[in-house]
């Protein structure tokens, strides 16, 4: 029995080093070598400055930007503190928050659900194509662009299902807004 305790200690030390140090470092090394961009979070830079990650959403509240989903990460899209709302379906807090968002977002017709519900991570970079298209008239009006142009931009930014099968169609809000700014700058 005592022998097993000794073995347990030795085993923990040896495999601890192997699995807790060697393994992650080896993976880090290979990953940095093979997939340097992905391994560091697909960071977007502008003038040498990091302006976000393609994978992480950002808060947009201005009327001239496409809005992402409500976020419960920190003060909103805080990628140092990911979180969902964790409010249940009968929670008054949830329903009040949703109805407030509905008031903000409402244009023509009912608001697409993902635009007024918080994601699980609070960092969801995407909205549904429906939610993006829903905002087109507002953007066009605010930016004084034709809604056809804005809609074309949105449609160009729809990521289809992976391999045509997996996941859901979606629009990356940060990329869409950056493209929107880019388009406005060019004009």
């Amino acid at each position, binding site marked *: 029995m005592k022998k097993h305790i*000794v073995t347990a200690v030795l085993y923990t030390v040896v495999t601890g080093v192997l699995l807790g140090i060697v393994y992650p470092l080896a993976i880090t090394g290979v*990953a940095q070598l093979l997939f340097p961009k*992905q391994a*560091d979070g697909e960071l977007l830079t502008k003038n040498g400055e990091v302006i976000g990650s393609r994978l992480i959403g950002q808060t947009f509240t201005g009327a001239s930007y496409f809005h992402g989903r409500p976020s419960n990460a920190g003060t909103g899209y805080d*990628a140092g503190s990911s979180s969902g709302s964790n*409010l249940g379906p009968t929670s008054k807090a949830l329903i009040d928050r949703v*109805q407030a968002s509905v008031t903000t977002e409402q244009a023509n017709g009912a608001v697409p659900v993902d635009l007024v*519900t918080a994601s699980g991570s609070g960092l*969801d970079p995407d909205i549904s194509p429906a939610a993006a298209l829903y905002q087109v008239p507002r953007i066009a009006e605010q930016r004084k662009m034709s809604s056809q142009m804005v809609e074309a931009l949105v449609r160009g930014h729809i990521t289809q299902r992976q391999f045509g099968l997996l996941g*859901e169609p979606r629009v990356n809000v940060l990329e869409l807004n950056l493209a929107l700014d880019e388009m406005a700058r060019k004009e």
Partner: protein
Amino acid sequence: MSLNGWLQISLFIALILLLAKPMGSYLTSVFDVDSKTRRRTWLDPVLGPIERLLYRLTGVDREHEMRWTEYAFAMFAFSAVTLVLTYGVERLQGFLPWNTQHLPGVASDTALNTAISFTTNTNWQSYVPETTMSYLTQMLGLATHNFWSAAVGLALAVAFVRGIARRESKTLGNFWVDLTRGTLWILVPISVVFALALVSQGVVQNLRPYDHAKLVEPQTLTTTGADGKSVSTTVTTQTIAQGPVASQEAIKMLGTNGGGFFNANSAHPFENPTPLTNFLQMLSIFLIPAGLTVMLGKMVGSPKHGWAVLAAMTILWFVATFACYWAESQANPLMHNVDQRASLTMAGGNMEGKEVRFGIANSALFAAVTTDASCGAVNSMHDSFTPLGGMVPMVNILLGEIVFGGVGAGLYGMLVFVVVAVFIAGLMVGRTPEYLGKKIEAYDVQMAMLYLLIFPLLILGFAAVAVMMPTNGVSVLANKGPHGLSEVLYAYASATGNNGSAFAGSNWNTHWYNYSLGFAMFFGRFMMIVPMLAIAGNLAGKKIVPESAGTFPVTTPLFTVLLVSVIVIVGALTFFPVISLGPILEHLLLHAGHMF
């Protein structure tokens, strides 16, 4: 529900069923020490020397066979030592390297809860990882447990299967050998490949400090200060947490551990960036458990029995997935002016707590899979599920997470149910109940009942105490009314069942919950292992009655139906009252327009 959703779900289960056989064959060649023609694996040339070196360094005699008591002791000694290590690393992380955010040592109750949580394969997280754990703690304190606890589970399952397969034997194998082979041959190689695949899709893997991105649109936040006045602050940067995520993510899923590198777990874009990573993560949860059923069939010499068990699991998986997908596709009747219908341009349904890239189908499937197994990783927030949708993961856990189940733990949990099912129905064929030629007698029934008892004792007992404590128990809950009850029930179910997922809104990081949940996790793992191994030890010593027309059939569809019925009825009878006050009542109240 959509056609595309069902296509994805069908593809998932088809791949699992396809992979079960090769995985099972591989597991058999890794673990079947009794087979005279033990097959070698193609990894032997690489891993053989490492294995032998490991035994030499740690003083393991690989030929030594252990009785169940010794096996249990070795397992327990190992678990205890690793638990202490993690507790130490957490407490001392402030003085240790790879602490880019200069995080202080973890508070003692949180540290203990976490150490138990990861040792027991639960990965319940009462803390926010990004702001609590250093990279070293994540790697050495937590990810190691993802290997160890999964390898322990595998070893235990293999020992149980040997108990069934062996005849008139006193021993179940050697714990250290089983632990080593499971780690080296199964967990490490798959994790390496899986981790790199994840990185290629965008799962981060680095040791850099958190990034600070300059926001495209700076935000003005208005908060109410302590003096009641509104304070405006302008936020111009976004903190982006980094870390060695992929290496941990791979084993977190493969070992059905489920502890997220980040707070949002597999909903976090850095843990699970694309539908493909999501799909692979779900596959990796079921991969080993599905293979284990095939290994069971092979090792006991009745491949059909393995398939019958797998069939039972598949049926239960399907029911859970269907129910969850259906429920989550429903609109929340309390929301007005919100378009919740599925269409070509959006998933619709209950999107609170879900990611757009996964939509309803992949969130529901993930929830079913992660709780069928004792994984507990989440790609959507179960707390925000519809009442019936959230009931599915809860019921999955309450049934004992035996549908595919955790690595190892799922199989031995299922086999305890098999013993009970065989005992109840076995009498009906007019023979002393027999399982694969082994008579099920008083001692086996006693241990099986003990195993089944511990579960409701811990879950219902603690939950009942918690809801009776207004301050410590109830006030920290994020939701009121029946949903609050569901949160408490889910928490203790998750802890006892070593799942680790949560109705996560509540502040579980309190003394009461850290300690009581820690207790539930600890006893939910080890108190159930003891009777389970006792059954295995007892079965190993028995003769095997040769099969005949009078033998209770454990290979037929009828057996599968019986097994499913026993699992559902035992589970339903135990937990129906409290569930009727939780999710069922909440569902009825929701549709009657109530809010809390």
